[in-house]
């Protein structure tokens, strides 16, 4: 099940010490997450509708043009009568033809518009346009050079510009009670052909997209910015990680709205997709000159065959939770960015409610070959511990015990859980039940860790935690090596069209195609996304 940002927002209702607020494996959090689906959908729909209110921010991926065929009156769908009470009409076999090339058209599994259009996955691509002799990297200068008379033309003839400020210490200043904000004013001709200007405020070191689409920037003015700040102007967003999340709806567990970003990284030599945030969740701290970022969670990037995907760049699809990642050898991978709840809920059922013990750790969502380190902790020391044992189950199902509750990460394979060898006897009243335990997670999936403690009165408490090695497999993999064998970057333009940049500096617009159909069984109409010259419907 997906984990929704709105779940954390709801969990903030509870006190800061409550497990529901701090532990996404708690029962309460799971219950909230069930509601989170609907709230998340509402949040995102409202965000999208809000942007659709204005022409400049409207979603160009809204459903617009379909192609349909009206089946003849005498056409009858095949029927599946397996269920004697409810007969099911079956989709016909359909082939679409474009310039005599045939494409098998698959029926949408759910046969609804959301899956047919908004959540559809392309099954092929084509080269639409090639642009050469231009560069999206336009200008780098220091703030002290302002004002600048320039002639910065968008490399595609018109669209958004990206402005990045680096090297400053503080961008917001209060002097004598007056607030000074670092600002950059762009002047020029908009894509629509209008002389216009736009002011961008930089509260801290960051990259911003212009709100207007520009054809050419003719003047850049900077106000209230440290003279040594380096300003970079680009008309594309290739190879400029990290990228701001499209909905950017996450909250910290301190009830603060936080910015989240996506980037590519490496953990234990494995290529990863990283969810990144600022180190501080307080904007005041960031604005005070501490805009450093940290990786919140990493997912190992895999292809369909579980082989690593060494991405060189990624781009986020607008109004979606999906990203395209490209490798240098001309492959495009389409990934879902959603976070997941743990699936081993049945295992967590064995936890002792209100347990006096717990496992203290920094992170339990890791990547294969990372080490899960924890300390068995007597969090509510009301009575002495008589004995304890620690064991875990790997994703493959194998059980392991921590021998002697050792401080060294010694796992003994083949020990049955009931094996007395892994029980550690001896009365103790310390907060630290055992020294730090480190276990290298070598399999992909969920590890079930258990700390069982028997107190001197014979009462047994169990703490259960799921540590997970996270990975993502692509929704689809497409090949562009035939026309762009050496990709250097990937980006969506202001028309929400996908572009690749090659090492040689050429730009390629990619057309994504969806050979899928929606069926109106009642009216006998087939709807397609692709504009086929004609279709063969076989029944």
């Amino acid at each position, binding site marked *: 099940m997906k984990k929704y940002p709105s779940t954390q927002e709801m969990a903030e209702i509870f006190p800061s010490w409550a497990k529901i607020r701090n532990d996404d494996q708690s029962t309460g959090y799971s219950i909230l997450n069930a509601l989170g689906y609907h709230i998340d959908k509402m949040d995102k729909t409202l965000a999208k509708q809000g942007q659709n209110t204005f*022409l400049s921010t*409207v979603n160009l991926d809204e459903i617009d043009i379909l192609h349909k*065929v009206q089946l003849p009156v005498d056409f009858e769908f095949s029927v599946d009568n397996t269920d004697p009470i409810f007969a099911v009409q079956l989709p016909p076999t359909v082939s679409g033809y474009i310039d005599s090339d045939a494409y098998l058209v698959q029926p949408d599994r759910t046969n609804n518009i959301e899956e047919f259009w908004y959540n559809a996955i392309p099954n092929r691509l084509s080269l639409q346009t090639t642009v050469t002799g231009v560069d999206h990297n336009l200008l780098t200068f220091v703030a002290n050079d302002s004002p600048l008379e320039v002639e910065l033309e968008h490399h595609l003839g018109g669209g958004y510009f990206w402005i990045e400020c680096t090297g400053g210490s503080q961008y917001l200043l209060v002097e004598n009670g007056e607030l000074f904000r670092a600002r950059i004013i762009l002047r020029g001709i908009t*894509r629509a052909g209008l002389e216009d200007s736009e002011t961008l405020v930089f509260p801290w070191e960051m990259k911003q997209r212009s709100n207007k689409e520009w054809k050419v920037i003719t003047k850049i003015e900077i106000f209230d910015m440290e003279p040594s700040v380096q300003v970079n102007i680009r008309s594309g967003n290739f190879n400029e990680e990290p990228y701001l999340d499209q909905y950017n709806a996450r909250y910290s567990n301190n009830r603060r709205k936080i910015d989240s970003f996506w980037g590519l990284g490496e953990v234990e030599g494995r290529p990863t997709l990283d969810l990144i945030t600022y180190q501080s969740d307080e904007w005041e701290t960031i604005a005070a000159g501490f805009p450093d970022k940290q990786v919140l969670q990493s997912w190992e990037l895999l292809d369909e065959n579980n082989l690593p995907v060494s991405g060189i760049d990624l781009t986020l699809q607008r109004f979606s939770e999906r990203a395209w990642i490209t490798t240098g050898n001309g492959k495009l991978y389409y990934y879902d960015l959603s976070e997941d709840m743990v699936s081993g809920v049945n295992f967590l059922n064995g936890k002792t409610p209100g347990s006096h013990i717990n496992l203290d750790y920094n992170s339990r969502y890791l990547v294969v070959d990372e080490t899960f380190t924890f300390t068995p902790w007597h969090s509510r020391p009301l009575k002495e511990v008589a004995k304890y044992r620690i064991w875990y189950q790997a994703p493959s199902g194998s059980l392991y015990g921590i021998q002697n509750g050792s401080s060294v990460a010694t796992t003994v394979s083949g020990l049955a859980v009931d094996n007395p060898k892994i029980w550690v006897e001896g009365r103790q009243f310390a907060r630290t039940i055992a020294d730090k335990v480190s276990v290298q997670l070598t399999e992909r999936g969920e590890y079930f860790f258990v700390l069982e403690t028997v107190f001197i009165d014979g009462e047994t408490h169990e703490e259960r935690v799921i540590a997970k090695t996270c990975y993502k497999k692509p929704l689809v993999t497409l090949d562009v090596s035939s026309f762009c064998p050496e990709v250097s970057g990937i980006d969506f333009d202001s028309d929400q069209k996908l572009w690749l940049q090659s090492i040689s500096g050429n730009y390629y617009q990619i057309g994504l195609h969806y050979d899928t159909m929606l069926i109106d069984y009642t009216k006998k109409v087939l709807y397609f996304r692709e504009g086929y010259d004609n279709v063969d419907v076989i029944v």
Partner: protein
Amino acid sequence: MTTYNLTPTVHAVFNELDSHGLLLGLPRLVGETNAAYKQRLMDVMVHRAGSSYQGLIYGITRELGLSITDAVTIEPVLDGDGIPLVTFPAVVFQDTKCFLYENYITETVLLEIDRFEQLDGSFNLQGLVDTINATGMYTAVLHGNPLMRSLCIWNQSSVGLITSENISNTGIRIRLAHTNLVPGTISIESPNLLIRKSSSNNLQSQEYFIDETSGTIISAQVPADGSIVRYKYRIDSFTAQASPIIIHNLQSADFKKKMFELVTDSDGNEQLGLPTELGADVINELLSIYPTNWGQ
């Protein structure tokens, strides 16, 4: 097993962009994608449609899903001191012609280019550019499709008109927004101070002097509230725009001659006869869009 061979048709689904289209009075064209439709909708705010010559071109171009493009950039050739070789350069596209001026002030034409005649060498943009470059007094750089008809450049000129520029309380040395003003086109309206134009900057009370080249007005007094100036000015780097929509006034004598053969009547006056080859071509093109019966 039965196979049906069918031809799909376009089916538009109403979305938020269509809502914007309703507000702006610009419906989606058949099969038009969101991205293309958005650009047309944005264009409504920039190229305002209306019943004027320019408004019709903007409106019709947009509504048909066509686009306005930069066609050619024309500049006067300069001498070593940066002075144009011609006395006062100007380029004017008017009706069927393109005029290159030797001196716009005295209306001395350097070259009159006929953009309608296929055999005159300036029928398409490439031909027009070659013709202009051949003068040696002007240079032209092509932006658009070289095979585009040069008559797609609508009526426009390299002489700009400022109908009202405010000069109230701007000091006694007033820098206007433009340089290279066209002598004889400047008029000042001031409630109390600027009354007489002086031929030198040795000014008496209520006099003013104009330096056309630098676009400067020197006044004996600071212009009072409500002082405005109207003038024409020269654009030396002039980019002519074009649209596939060509609007001509059927009453224009120049245009009539291109569309119809001229026949001399019994009184010796020229009358319009049958359509010319070009006229027939244009009429057929019109009829292909909106079939009707000729003459009805």
